[in-house]
């Protein structure tokens, strides 16, 4: 009963917005700017399943492949970011010497927004997947490295002492104490980094490649298909949500000890 109540509460505002949107979309001065929800769903349906007709619709039936292009790029760039940033962040947080070498470098590059890297990345990689993956990597990298560093710095001193007392070497300490102790922070970094990676994929696909949700978004805008633009926006949000939930469920499984602690 309670769940039903919360569900009804939760959908009230979205439904009101949808109704207002439907009326607003029907106003004559909104034509070509704001398609109605019904029109968006119809356009989306054609985008997903294809449309019967003369084959003039460039988007017909291409939704899934574009989702795949974008998701694949996020997966590649983000994985690369995670594989490099987690160990690097742990080392920076763990060793003052490594921090002195790397932290100034990373901190001085970090304020450059990933969007500012766009021209450089196109110059370097051309109109190709690599340019897009590079930006996604960069977007995910900073968030993960900063959080992993923080996690390694915050490890309870007595856990380190306990491990040393039991004969752990420095390498064992890093792998068996610092890494698991930093995992909560690492997951925070992964979630933030993944969000930035999705931003990066859309931005880069608008400019640097000719496929994916970001490419369709910009292309549909140029040809005035605002229904596709809006369906695309919702698709991006959906993919971001699903991939975030994926990380959260991995986190819940990996950090069972932590979720027990909080309940």
């Amino acid at each position: 009963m309670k769940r039903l109540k919360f569900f009804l509460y939760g959908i009230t505002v979205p439904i009101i917005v949808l109704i207002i949107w439907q009326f607003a979309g029907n106003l004559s001065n909104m034509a070509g700017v704001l398609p109605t929800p019904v029109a968006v769903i119809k356009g989306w349906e054609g985008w997903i399943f294809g449309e019967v007709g003369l084959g003039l619709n460039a988007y017909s039936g291409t939704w899934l492949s574009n989702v795949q292009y974008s998701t694949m790029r996020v997966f590649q760039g983000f994985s690369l970011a995670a594989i490099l940033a987690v160990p690097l962040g742990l080392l920076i947080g763990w060793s003052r010497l490594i921090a002195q070498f790397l932290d100034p470098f990373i901190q001085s590059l970090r304020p450059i927004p990933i969007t500012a890297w766009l021209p450089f990345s196109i110059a370097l990689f051309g109109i190709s997947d690599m340019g897009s993956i590079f930006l996604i990597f960069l977007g995910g990298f900073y968030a993960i490295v900063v959080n992993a560093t923080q996690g390694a710095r915050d490890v309870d001193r007595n856990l380190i002492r306990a491990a040393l007392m039991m004969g752990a070497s420095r390498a064992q300490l890093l792998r068996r104490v610092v890494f698991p102790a930093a995992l909560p922070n690492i997951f925070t970094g992964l979630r933030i980094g993944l969000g930035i990676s999705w931003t990066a994929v859309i931005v880069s696909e608008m400019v640097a490649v000719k496929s994916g949700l970001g490419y369709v978004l910009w292309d549909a805008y140029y040809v005035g298909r605002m229904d596709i633009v809006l369906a695309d926006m919702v698709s991006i949000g959906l993919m971001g949500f699903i991939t975030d939930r994926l990380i959260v469920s991995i986190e819940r499984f990996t950090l069972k000890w932590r979720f027990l602690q909080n309940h």
Partner: protein
Amino acid sequence: MPAIQIQNLHKIYLGDPPVHALEGIDLTVNDGELVALLGPSGCGKSTLLNLIASFENASSGELLVHGESHDAPGPDRGVVFQEAALFPWLNVWENVIFGPKTKGLAASEYEDKANEMLKIVGLSDFKKHLPVQLSGGMRQRVGIARILTLGSRVLLMDEPFGALDAQTRLSMQELLLSVWQQLKPTIIFVTHDIDEAIFLADNIYVMSARPGRIAEKIVVPLPRPRTITDTTTEAFNQLKREILLQIRH
């Protein structure tokens, strides 16, 4: 050879002004002896324990454990921490075997011992539990089982029962005494609880603060094995009065 020999040990924390945490500590602890370091907070008793464990380094003086000076922590000196300091992501069993496993021993070499130690501390049925699922007293039992499995001959205990409720504290003290009777390790037990010090120790070293010094050595004449009822005897109370007067002035 004594288990621990300390001569003219100083610990100064540099700063402005520098803090003289320990001044001229002399202490000899025999093999298998149970010693209590008793004193108010800030008297340097935990610092002294950290120096013996090599968590910190002394500013000057000599500190030998089984005749050797150490510059790093090691399994010969097992530490029980105030808040247990178990690895929260490992279950009881994994925590207990952390030492031998880290050392690279085969499971067959430590499993029997770990099982035995878990039995001694009464946690045989809790191997799969995570530390968060245990009470404070049970966590300290794991902390004790883990250094017994490690095979430490010297146990350094830093107010291990300080955060427990009175009843649990009593049963943990009894448990520690029974472990000590069975295995006879050398124990240095830091506490600010006079009753605890008398109940457990062969010798009590009363420390005073600023700078941290050993003010007095008190021999506890109570016979062993001791039980809870010993804490209500006239001899016990007489000793407590003496120590109270000692600490007051």
